[in-house]
């Protein structure tokens, strides 16, 4: 139709904003259905123990309390349901699934053991104090080392704390190591942290006993999957269940998975024939919402003397917490498979050990596995480059994949269907663009310099960002009586401005102004099936589904219009909301009610890619690291809305800086969470944020979808660990410091400097070098 691409590529203001800046957003905690009751969870105060008894008598007697449910109630009609493995399931994971309420054991602090339903949330919280829970303590498995020993077991029936070992393989790593000029081995660690959306989780369930219909508000990310799974767990027909998406205060991978509460809240609503709302508080959130990122790695790199990377091998331990949650295996799977990132590494042998510990279960967080591998690999690269006397920029140039080497498959995972390949791109171009924008040449003189008491360092790191999560997405487009269109899509919003971006795509496809498009998403009432918002997929998949549906709608319009207005369908022109036929024209509104739903299928992921560069200054007296300048350049295939994309990039970089410097879920040796408030769990604030320049390019369209877009939104975070740690290492080169464990908090950096000074005072210490 006319005006192609008028909206795509334009920084149009978000359609979401007017509501949100005036306080008219509608979040789940704002919903007040008729006869609303309130749920609160009683959570285990102990990390590991046998659940002997629960006495809720006094709580039930408290005026205002309606019910207290425990495993005895949930399991009255059969086994207590288990949380499913939604994504990247493993048969070995079945024995490690979480019951929706603790049955015989508790396995982490924060695990739900009872649900109180009351007329008022404060009364429900009062009732928590009256419930007596008898837990017989068991030895806590507090970390991955204890887990690996199997001295104490979380799951006696399973016989081990090791769920499985994922083995990524490409080429022949051992042979490559045997033949290499140079090898180096190092140990790495990434601290446990979490996505921490600003809106705590919440759910509101209504159940109508007469019709048997359950409606669950507060859904996001994967509402259609959750409907299917929850219907089964609740014993309802899928047609009797709807999940409704309202405004969502941030997702970042953690929100919208099936958690215990996603069963318990509708369960309570069904049992009581009432509406039940549950809103998480922040302390609960920190111990109950998915944790992420805790990996410990022992890795080895093999190179030629000229800096060509030949092979990577080693072991990664994933501390997954107490249970195999819905997507708990996605991060370790990504860690073992995506270790090479955008670099040419032909020989890979990485074993990922999936371990359970008495901590909150883990799942995905923005850039799962990508952040981790980027940190491990980029650190190894700079260690190797330094040992070999090669400039880190030249080292990366030598190893970045060339345009003509794409597409290129990633290592496979033994026994797992995990085939995927890098699609396309010009990695070297983006690398150079980042160096140029950063001013690498001018800043190179700063490397390792002591200026006014602080050491300066710069570093550069490249990354890939997976997106376009398959397998398909649905969109329905309906002509409305006012001449506009309603576009319904199975993708979900998590606060990223999805409605704006998808409206732009729909408006372009139909040649309509954006104001003529009403975009609805997420809820299970809209389309036949949907696949939600994860794996940077909602723009790629939802947008492609809209393109396919728009094409079908236009074809349908031409056929119908030709019948009414004469001539052949091919003669019909549709422009600016007017349908022109051989014998006249009709406004689009004359075709109100015309509606098509189409499915877009895709089997291939998209791989955005880019480069980050950072300049830091380290104060050796305090260990404080200041980020002075930060540049990211990423090619996302095709930019739909540069303004919302830029916002995603800056936000992601800042989250990454939180991961690098601040955020840490600390447990003591008994498995108690010590960081249960935002006064203890620190995230970046406005005074922590440095100068950040984000450049997003639509350089090479993705060949694998009609939109040509690749996933975006995670890339700003992915390389932060590697590039900052390398910049700190470069700044402290005179000390020989290797910052291989995050977070780079002042005490940790200070300690590294002190240890280096002690080493330098005792000169017999030997380093590793050429083999």
């Amino acid at each position: 139709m006319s005006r192609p691409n008028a909206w795509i590529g334009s920084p149009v203001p978000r359609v979401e904003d007017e509501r949100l800046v005036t306080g008219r957003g509608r979040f789940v905690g704002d919903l007040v259905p008729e006869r609303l009751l309130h749920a609160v969870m009683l959570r285990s105060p102990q990390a590991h123990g046998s659940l002997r008894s629960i006495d809720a008598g006094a709580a039930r007697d408290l005026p205002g309390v309606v019910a207290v449910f425990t495993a005895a109630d949930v399991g009255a009609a059969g086994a207590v349901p288990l949380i499913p493995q939604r994504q990247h399931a493993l048969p070995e994971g079945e024995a490690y699934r979480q019951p929706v309420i603790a049955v015989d054991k508790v396995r982490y602090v924060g695990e739900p053991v009872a649900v109180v339903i009351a007329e008022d949330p404060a009364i429900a919280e009062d009732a928590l104090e009256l419930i007596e829970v008898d837990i017989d303590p068991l030895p806590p498995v507090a970390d991955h080392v204890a887990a690996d020993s199997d001295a104490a077991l979380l799951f006696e029936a399973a016989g081990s704390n090791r769920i499985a070992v994922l083995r990524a393989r490409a080429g022949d790593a051992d042979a490559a190591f045997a033949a290499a000029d140079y090898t180096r081995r190092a140990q790495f660690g990434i601290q446990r942290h979490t996505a921490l959306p600003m809106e705590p989780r919440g759910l509101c369930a209504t159940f109508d006993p007469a019709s048997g219909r359950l409606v669950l508000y507060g859904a996001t990310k994967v509402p259609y999957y959750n409907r299917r799974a929850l219907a089964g767990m609740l014993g309802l027909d899928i047609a009797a269940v709807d999940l409704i998406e309202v405004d969502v205060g941030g997702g970042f991978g953690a929100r919208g998975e099936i958690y215990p509460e996603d069963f318990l809240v509708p369960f309570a609503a069904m049992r009581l024939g009432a509406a039940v709302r549950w809103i998480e508080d922040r302390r609960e959130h920190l111990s109950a919402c998915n944790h992420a990122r805790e990996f410990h790695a022992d890795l080895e790199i093999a190179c030629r003397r000229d800096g060509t990377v030949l092979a990577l091998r080693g072991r990664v331990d994933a501390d997954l917490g107490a249970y195999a949650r819905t997507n708990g295996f996605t991060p370790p799977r990504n860690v073992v498979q995506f270790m090479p990132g955008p670099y040419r590494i032909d020989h890979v042998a990485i074993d990922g050990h999936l371990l359970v510990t008495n901590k909150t279960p883990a799942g995905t967080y923005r850039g799962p596995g990508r952040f981790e591998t980027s940190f491990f690999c980029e650190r190894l690269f700079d260690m190797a480059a330094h040992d070999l006397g090669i400039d880190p920029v030249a080292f990366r140039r030598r190893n970045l994949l060339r345009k003509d080497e794409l597409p290129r498959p990633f290592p496979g995972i033994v026994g797992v269907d995990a085939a995927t390949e890098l699609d396309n791109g010009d990695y070297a171009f983006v690398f150079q663009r980042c160096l140029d924008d950063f001013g690498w040449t001018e800043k190179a003189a700063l490397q390792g310099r002591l200026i006014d008491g602080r050491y300066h360092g710069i570093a550069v790191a490249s990354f890939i960002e997976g997106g376009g999560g398959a397998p398909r997405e649905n969109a329905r487009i309906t002509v409305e009586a006012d001449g506009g269109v309603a576009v319904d899509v199975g993708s979900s919003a998590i606060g990223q401005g999805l409605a704006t971006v998808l409206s732009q795509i729909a408006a372009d496809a139909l040649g309509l102004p954006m104001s003529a498009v009403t975009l609805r998403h997420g809820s299970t009432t809209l389309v036949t099936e949907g696949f939600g918002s994860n794996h940077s997929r909602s723009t790629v998949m939802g947008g492609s589904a809209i393109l396919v549906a728009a094409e079908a709608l236009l074809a349908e319009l031409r056929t119908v219009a030709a019948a009414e207005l004469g001539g052949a369908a091919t003669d019909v022109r549709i422009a600016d909301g007017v349908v022109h036929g051989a014998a006249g024209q009709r406004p689009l509104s004359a075709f109100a009610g015309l509606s098509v739903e189409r499915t877009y299928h895709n089997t291939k992921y998209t791989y955005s890619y880019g480069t980050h560069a950072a300049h830091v200054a380290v104060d050796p007296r305090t260990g404080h690291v200041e980020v002075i300048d930060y540049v990211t350049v990423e090619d996302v295939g095709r930019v739909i809305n540069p303004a919302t994309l830029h916002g995603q990039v800056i936000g992601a970089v800042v989250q990454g800086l939180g991961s690098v410097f601040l955020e840490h879920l600390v447990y003591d040796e008994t498995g108690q969470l010590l960081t249960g408030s935002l006064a203890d769990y620190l995230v970046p604030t406005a005074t922590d944020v440095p100068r950040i320049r984000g450049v997003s390019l639509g350089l090479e369209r993705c060949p694998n979808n009609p939109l040509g877009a690749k996933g975006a939104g995670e890339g700003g975070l992915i390389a932060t660990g590697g590039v900052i740690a390398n910049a700190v290492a470069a700044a402290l080169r005179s000390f020989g410091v290797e910052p291989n464990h995050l977070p780079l908090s002042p005490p940790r950096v200070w300690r590294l400097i002190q240890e280096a000074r002690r080493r330098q005072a005792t000169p017999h210490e030997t380093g590793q070098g050429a083999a």
Partner: protein
Amino acid sequence: MTTARITLTINGTATTLDVPVRMTLADALREKARLTGTHVACEHGVCGACTVLVDGLAVRSCLMLAVQADGAAVTTVEGLARDGALSPLQAAFRDHHALQCGFCTPGILTTMHALLTAEPDADEARIRDVLSGNLCRCTGYLPIVEAVLAARDAYRAPDGGPEAAR
């Protein structure tokens, strides 16, 4: 539960509420006055999402009891816009993409409104300093700082002051 009757002005409207004496101002605004634009995200005074203006001062409504607001004039995010038009600050947030999920936004708008009302010439460092009391997980703060800088002019208007800037 002991309740108390309080009378206060909310967004210019005199309002009487019966509240449990232990209820926070945040909960009273949300549950009793049904003004759900004020968001609760930490309930321990760290994140700033629940910030409202009490007699012109930015206050964490999760740390204040509703009974303490008896007789006060409270402004919530719903009270920033006038006659259906966005305030200059709200418009600047939209124009500068200073929000994504929007959950922290009401508390940031009220906080920055209080800042610019008192200090219309606040520079970037001052804005960042005050903004550091509010947590945002989506934007990385930089677009928020840009929006607030851009909104300063409206607070400096010759006939200005807080009312004109609304």
